[in-house]
């Protein structure tokens, strides 16, 4: 989001008139324009550029309990590239991305289309109901699901045992990622649905009427008019989800308490960086990990964007 904004503001800045003679009216407009972007630029510098620069700077050093601070150049990055724990974490979130994001966005799209079709009774209530999980703080959601998954006392286990079925351990090493996907899907389907739904509402209804006259049914309308029309919104949710997957932190960090042996300290790259900085006292290496993670996110987001643009062009 931030990146998009900056891009725009930079372009605006570049497009502002050259320094020639400027009429007083124009000048006051200019002043107003700069005055209006200043708060953003200040916050942007203070909250993004400076911390980023600082993180980049400290990632070039090593700070040991014995031996203190020393400049090591790119050694931390080299170490990260060879770090198996970092690779494992990246692999895990990549798997998460490949499986969870399509499911979540598919569901969100389906619900948005269903609500938009106007055939759902109590659409307003259902819209709100689907959105509510997003309003539940991630921490609360994870604690709640942790309870639901619980092996001895959780409702899932209790129900299954009551009907005489073996209860799966939803917090074991082979099920944990799936359990986490379920939590995140539950949390974010509503959010993505609202974005898509808002985009759907902006489509002029004349198109539907025309399509209906041509004999198109609801499914055909959805496939040929609605989905292509809201492609930018879908792309937006996809990029948010890519970033969200790579940044996965709350869920593993909270489930660690319930299943410490399964999660460990490097389950996701963010959790790893956090533990490196605050348990291992190695903020420098943590900064290098965070930087590399940022790089990976940028590359993947770019690929997603590029891919969908190509698909859009191909579609036309």
């Amino acid at each position, binding site marked *: 989001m931030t990146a998009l904004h900056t891009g725009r503001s930079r372009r605006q800045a570049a497009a502002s008139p050259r320094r020639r003679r400027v009429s007083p009216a124009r000048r006051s407009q200019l002043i107003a324009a700069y005055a209006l972007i200043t708060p953003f630029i200040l916050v942007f510098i203070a*909250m*993004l550029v400076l*911390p*980023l620069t*600082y*993180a980049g700077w*400290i990632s070039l050093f090593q*700070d*040991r*309990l*014995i*031996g*203190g*601070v020393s400049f090591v150049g790119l050694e931390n990055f080299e170490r990260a590239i060879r770090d198996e724990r970092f690779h494992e974490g990246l692999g895990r979130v990549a798997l998460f991305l490949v499986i969870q994001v399509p499911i979540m966005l598919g569901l969100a799209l389906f619900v948005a289309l269903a609500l938009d079709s106007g055939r759902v009774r109590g659409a307003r209530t259902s819209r709100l109901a689907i959105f509510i999980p997003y309003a539940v703080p991630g921490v609360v959601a994870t604690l709640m699901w942790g*309870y639901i998954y*619980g*092996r*001895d*006392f959780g409702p899932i286990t209790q129900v299954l045992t009551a009907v005489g079925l073996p209860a799966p351990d939803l917090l074991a*090493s082979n099920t944990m990622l799936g359990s986490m996907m379920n939590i995140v899907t539950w949390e974010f389907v509503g959010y993505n649905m609202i974005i898509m739904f808002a985009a759907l509402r902006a489509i002029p209804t004349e198109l539907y009427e025309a399509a209906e006259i041509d004999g198109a049914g609801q499914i055909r309308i959805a496939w040929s008019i609605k989905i292509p029309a809201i492609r930018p919104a879908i792309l937006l949710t996809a990029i948010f989800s890519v970033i969200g997957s790579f*940044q996965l932190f709350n869920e593993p960090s909270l489930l660690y*308490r*319930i*299943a*410490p*042996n*399964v999660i*460990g*300290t490097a389950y996701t790259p*963010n959790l790893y*960086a*956090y*533990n490196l*900085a*605050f*348990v*291992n*006292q*190695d*903020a420098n290496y*943590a*900064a290098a990990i*965070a*930087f590399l*993670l*940022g790089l990976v996110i940028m590359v993947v987001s770019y690929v997603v964007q590029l891919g969908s643009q190509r698909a859009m062009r191909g579609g036309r």
Partner: protein
Amino acid sequence: MFTRTRTRRRTAVVVSAFAAIALAACSSTAVEAPSEEETEDALSAPTTLTLWTWVPGIEAQVALFEEAYPNITVNLENVGQGGEHYTKVRTALEAGTGAPDVIHMEYQFISSFRVTDSLLDLSPYGARDLEPDFTPWVWGQVADDAGVWAIPMDAGPMGNLYREDILAEAGITAAPETWDDFAAAAEAVREQTGSYLTNLPSNEGGAFVGLLWQAGAKPFGYDGAETVTINIDSPESQQVVDYWQDLIDRDLVAVDPNFTDTWYQGLANGTYASWQTAAWGPLFLSGTAADTSGLWRAAPLPQWDAANPASGNWGGSSYAVVNTTENPIAAAELAKWINTDPESTLLLATDQFLFPTLQSVLADDAFAGQELEFYGGQQVNALFAEISETIDTEFEWLPFMDFVYTAFPETLGAEIADRGDLRAGLTAWQDAVVEYALSQGFTVAD
């Protein structure tokens, strides 16, 4: 993640770099002891202190302190227990703001915070005078020639709390005296009642270290400067690990992580028939498993050698003052007062059931003679006081115990949880700790 920042004072790093020299320098350049007048002024001025601790019911002691010093207000905050607490303290220290004045500090973490120069030396504030009042081995955990780094609150000699009724159901009438008896009992309990005799926590380094301590292992050592000794994978440890491997393979013990919902349930509903725990455990248990009151008994840990009874220590804590405090005099007084005032400490021992470190309280009949209904009227305190005498006091720590404990669930703990190869896990734990020590610039002694 990009915004993750950290400020570390260079001076602190230099100090840790030349720890031995610098610590000496520290004590010589330390703040001079405040005069009586200064102390009095500081204690009567309106002051607000923040205390981070997880002692249940500490509100009572804080209220007594505020009564004694009406102008001092104490903000009591519980930011979590154990690892969570230390991570938050570290985060606040790294951030440079938001750190409390006084913190709960288990003995094994003192060196971890000293190596980063985060603790205030309490000797200028009269802490040296307190030495004779405390159990000698406990005092050794908080003070050395360079300074007094914390005021002891409680200790955690380990014993065995067990469900008398479940053992009786399995035909066992007395607490297992040796570990062999314990294994036999585990078999009987599993067969006759379906319960596990105990749970070997797969996430808790502290409890496991206590068991190693009992077996005479010396896994850690630190010379106060740059050299650490890491002997986790020793013959003594292997003996302990092999013992549990057998029980785990035969499904005679549970392997759940402790202090989780599953575990609380297990204690309360009889899934586990005993808990090998420290002297702070009895009260904790009576809160967690209130419905089973009267069914529990306390005994010493099962022994490796019944002729030479031994025990280990798990936890036990002190109050330390963070050296970023703006009110060192008042903060030091808070740490001292809560842990030495007769009314406060007796309350700690008899009400909060924290095992005392103060000689006067240990000898007090109001403490030792206390009969606890939860344990069928047993004098649990007197029992733990006896156990305390059998603890090997030559036990040392590494200056990075937080890493050692977080590495546990990923190495040995993971093998325990998966009912896998514990020996391999022990070696992995050793390797992880050595690697970390080397990466932090320590010399690892053989």
